[in-house]
């Protein structure tokens, strides 16, 4: 079976650690990146099947990255699941063009379900 490739980006090491473990457990190929500035290049290089993106990050915020992704013809339909602990996260994520939004702290089953949904159609 072809393993789906997921790029995750969050500036918090603990959350990256957690997501790597649970996604890996599900059989996904996980690429983890904490530096928001490297995300765009990584996407172009790795062509992931889905991106999990934290919204509130230093230097480049998740919604800025998202807008950049949506402006790239190759990736304008790339599934992006935005996650955030901020209260207006959903509004910001949807405005920036996220495929789905999951609020922190999340239930991992819920997160896995939201991630699996767009991948099933691919």
């Amino acid at each position: 079976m072809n393993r789906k490739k997921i790029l995750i980006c969050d500036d918090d090491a603990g959350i990256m650690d957690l997501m790597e473990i649970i996604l890996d457990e599900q059989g996904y190929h996980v690429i983890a990146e904490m530096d928001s500035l490297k995300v765009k290049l990584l996407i172009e290089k790795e062509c992931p099947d889905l991106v999990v993106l934290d919204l509130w990050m230093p230097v480049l915020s998740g919604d800025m990255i998202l807008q950049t992704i949506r402006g790239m013809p190759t990736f304008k339909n790339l599934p992006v699941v935005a996650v955030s602990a901020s209260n207006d996260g959903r509004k910001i994520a949807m405005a920036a063009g996220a495929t789905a939004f999951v609020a922190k702290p999340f239930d991992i089953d819920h997160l896995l379900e939201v991630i699996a949904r767009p991948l099933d159609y691919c």
Partner: protein
Amino acid sequence: MISGYRRNEIIGHNCRFLQADDRDQPERAILAESISKGVECKVEIRNYRKNGDLFWNELFMAPVRDEKGAISHFIGVQNDVTERKKTEHDLRQQKLLMEQKIVERTSALKESEAFLTSIIETMREGLLVLDPNFVVLSANYHFLRTFKVNLEDTLGKNLYALGNNQWDIPQLKELLVKILPTNNPVVDFEVEHDFPHIGKKLMLLNAYRVELEGQFKDQILLAIEDITEKREIERRKDDFLSIASHELKTPLTTIKGFMQVLERSVPKDASEKFLSTLSKVSTNVDRLNNLIGELLDVSKIQTGNITLHKANFDFDKMVMDAVDAMQASTNTHKIIVQGKTNAVVEADESHIIQVLNNLLSNAVKYAPEGGNILIEINNVSEYVKLSVKDDGLGMNAEDAKRVFERFYRSSEIQKHFPGMGIGLYICDQIIKNHKGTLWVESEKGKGSTFSFTLPKGGSDDE
């Protein structure tokens, strides 16, 4: 006759006996002088009747001359003017009294004016009095200080011309010209303006036009509160709280996630103690998350920043879903739903669910012995009504009165059930935001019934 003396007692006597012992009257000197000069005169002199009673005598005296022109004698015409004198005296007394009263009143007015002025000068809100053409009649100290102007440059000037036309603000004009005459008084009208020298100010204006007939008619009282700093502090508090809540939630996400990873990898032979410990940690992580959310809610409610996302939803279904979720988390309590509304309600569903969850979890929490929780739903005219009845501890009247206050905790409850005292406050605010009512009926030892009503059509303020 006037004097009460008989003719023979008078004729041939000097008339001074009429003054009895009252000899020092200045009028006597006038009489003496007239006699010596041989001219006529008129005096009012105190005379005494034979019985000693005082009477005022208006005495007109004139010389009588013989053919040669020499004075032969004087003739005096007497007139009893006691009554007139008395009236005059009374009048004088009245006038004196009046004058005294006027002095007293004037001083009271002055005092009262000084008192009012001291109030106006002391208050920390700018106050202008304008005439009907918006010319400044008075400005208080706080106005001058806030807007860095002096009295000479302010009094007698048109409001719009003050300080290089810096008050020529379209919103202010609209307030004074359009709104004030039709909607008197104007309360808390918010105006933002960038002043050339003092910078951007956010002001809360209250205006009142004097309608009373008289010298103050149509004068305008304009109170200006500078809320720039206050708003900035509120904004910073909101920012702080949302950053703090974000930062707290981040490690919480990790804890919750790893807890779930742990739960998934529980060994088959794990002990009962291990499992219950795991579940307790998990429960408390959720509690902590709720508390962080509530703190943020309180801050938003306080600054009025709650936005309602209203939509139509099936009220009965919402109730059943919330009850099912709560029932799944307790096996000590049985939640029974009675009644039906069949209503579609226009409200912010997530907020109403939050209220219901809070009432349900309170019912569970404050009935530690377990038992039934009865939920009743029904229609009351244009409202839906929901009640949550428990057989728990109940509360006394004092607590029932204050239970919706922010941070209120009954001291007795706090001993056994620690909490922050904001859950019901938030519920109350949410229901109020929806133009409904939340209340409690309770008796100590007999449980509590929390009820709320909610308008079906939603409130029409949007």
